[in-house]
């Protein structure tokens, strides 16, 4: 296992800068998730770590040692892709054993057998070992692909949207298994996704990636509760965070605040009419969601709902101050008296 450091990495493809002056430290044994939309530079970052791409500038360190000149095979990273690329003519057993049979590894036969069986057991595919890879379901195939990465016991796992092509139920199941496996093995994992659920449920820490740059790094809780910018605030949370004009808050907010943001689960619904009331657009008892509007601005409230409110009717919202985040005109977050900065900084050092 290994720690990974990126130092001021830049990678361009022609006129496009895929990764811009990126620095990042990933600890040994950490599950690190790079979260961002397509085109943000997530996959390029993984390929730079693996050695499939070479940075224009900057260095890649593994366990403190610069590996920029090291070929991929010697960096010892195992890749898992979204599209499981198994050998269709081989059995499950042979697919998993394949990396161990690489000539330079020289793994004895009984050792191969032991490791394949151990991995198959972890992934619940022992009964499928003699099957052809093509006779498996999508979920099983992705398990085999993960198994093939695990069996090598590499220094680092690099995973590129490994669950994206699976259906919801399987994705959930495999997500939990993946996390359990990593916790048991203490493996270093760098995991790329655009799916915020995968990010918050899997990550020890998340790196928010946007246009080739890291915008914030922190634990899932830090990113969710203490986003440094409006952009990051909108990256996590479904439905997404409410962004309200500061004028609605009459002087009681930070003097530089242009926007007040509050999560839907913190917006309380109260009945009633009046100047501060909202017109209901949508209400779902199943999703516990109320969407209402005032002067063209939509507000979403997501709390336990006992009774439906009728679209078109008026409701009031309460925005408890302890849950509000304040942002300036440029979208940078402003520290507010009641945000728990002390707790946040303690968590950062822990």
């Amino acid at each position: 296992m290994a720690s990974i450091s990126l130092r001021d990495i830049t990678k361009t493809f022609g006129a496009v800068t895929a990764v811009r002056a990126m620095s990042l430290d990933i600890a040994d044994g950490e599950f690190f998730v790079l979260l961002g939309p397509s085109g943000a530079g997530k996959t390029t970052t993984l390929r730079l770590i693996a050695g499939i791409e070479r940075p224009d500038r900057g260095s890649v360190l593994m366990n403190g040692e610069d590996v920029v000149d090291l070929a991929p095979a010697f960096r010892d990273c195992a890749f898992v892709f979204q599209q499981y690329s198994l050998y269709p003519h081989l059995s499950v057993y042979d697919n998993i054993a394949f990396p161990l049979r690489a000539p330079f590894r020289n793994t004895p036969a009984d050792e191969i057998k032991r490791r394949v069986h151990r991995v198959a057991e972890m992934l619940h595919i022992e009964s499928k070992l003699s099957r052809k890879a093509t006779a498996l379901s999508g979920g099983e195939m992705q398990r085999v692909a993960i198994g093939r990465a695990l069996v090598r016991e590499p220094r680092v796992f690099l995973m590129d949207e490994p669950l994206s092509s699976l259906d919801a139920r399987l994705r959930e199941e495999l997500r939990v298994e993946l996390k359990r496996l990593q916790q048991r093995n203490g493996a270093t994992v760098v995991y790329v996704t655009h799916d915020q659920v995968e990010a918050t449920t899997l990550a020890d820490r998340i790196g928010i990636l946007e246009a080739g740059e890291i915008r914030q790094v922190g634990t899932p809780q830090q990113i969710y509760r203490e986003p440094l910018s409006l952009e990051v605030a909108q990256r996590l949370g479904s439905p997404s965070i409410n962004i309200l004009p500061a004028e609605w808050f009459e002087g009681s907010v930070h003097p530089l605040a242009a926007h007040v943001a509050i999560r839907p689960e913190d917006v309380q619904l109260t009945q009633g009419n009046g100047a501060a009331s909202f017109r209901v657009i949508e209400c779902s008892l199943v999703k516990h969601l109320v969407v209402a509007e005032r002067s063209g601005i939509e507000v979403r409230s997501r709390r336990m709902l006992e009774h439906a409110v009728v679209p078109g009717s008026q409701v009031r919202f309460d925005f408890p101050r302890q849950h509000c985040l304040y942002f300036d005109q440029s979208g940078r977050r402003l520290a507010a008296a009641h945000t728990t900065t002390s707790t946040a900084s303690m968590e950062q050092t822990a």
Partner: protein
Amino acid sequence: MADIRIKNLHKRFADFVAVRDSSLLLEDGKFVVLLGPSGCGKTTTLRMIAGLEYPTSGTIALDQDDVTYRRPRERDIAMVFQLFALYPHMGVRDNLEFPLRNEGLPRAEIDKRIREVASILRIEHLLGSRVGGLAGGDRQRVALGRAIVRQPKAFLMDEPLGTLDAEFRELMCVELRKLHDRLKTTTVFVTHDQTEAMALADQIVVMNQGEILQADDPEGIYNFPSCRFVASFIGRPPMNFLDVGERVIPGMSTVALDGARVAVPEIHTLADQAVLGVRPEHVRFVDNANGALPGLIKYVEYFGSHWIAEVESAAGTLKAVVDKDLRPGIGDRIGLEFKTERIVLFDAKTQLLLPSATTCKHQPSMSHG
């Protein structure tokens, strides 16, 4: 606009019964989703409505007009297969006009329809563009436009979003629903995806093995599932099921869960063996003392707005939605409480919902048989 009346519909393929004696009234202007796992008969039902299959027995009426054996073209219903399918080499206007030119409509009528559709979907400014250069959302609106330009009496859609990736699927769901709110054309939509169904439907028809298990609005299906199959098919994570440790009899308002007594809505029917059903968001953690069902936290996942914890109890394993401000830890011992009025009970043998004080008050919004 039309309502669609299905009566005792039965479809057999050789030995296989695809649809079994189904009756259903799809009201004018509603968005109805046929939901179920593959092989449940939802697509066969849709194809019979479209006229692509004829039933073995039973009838289909459009606005009182029996169309059971009429050809698809004579039904004035639009079947939509996949919404993203556009002709990439044609412009937006040509894509929209295509179905109308096929019908041989006069030029003036075609122009009028295109104007209407473009304004409904806010794509007037795109009419001169090529399809190839469009952004994802615009492309989807054009695809929708091509489906609605014929102005049929009803839309039939067979997993139209199935091949889109997750991000576009959500976007498309929103567009589709907005469009329906404006046009109010009766829509029958087939899917196996419960999230899609919940997001789109006025009414959901849950099917399994050729039979209609329940037909109701999303809230009715969610709160009062007619059987365990429906209960576990709808909702993510699915409903929890815990074994009741005693025979239940009418008048009971608590049941035994491994020694703990849990309050439930008053039971109206007898069952030798019962299963308690409760959704993860209606489970609450309390002090591990004074009589609550004891639980041990096995696993937790963080979702930002909440946690989901997997808890082991003597009555079974369950999942609970936990407030974001709490910090549930693996290995914590806790007590479990449930929101009484949201508990449902099932007969363990028949798997059917047991009538109780809450279920009796509920009126399904749709009739089926």
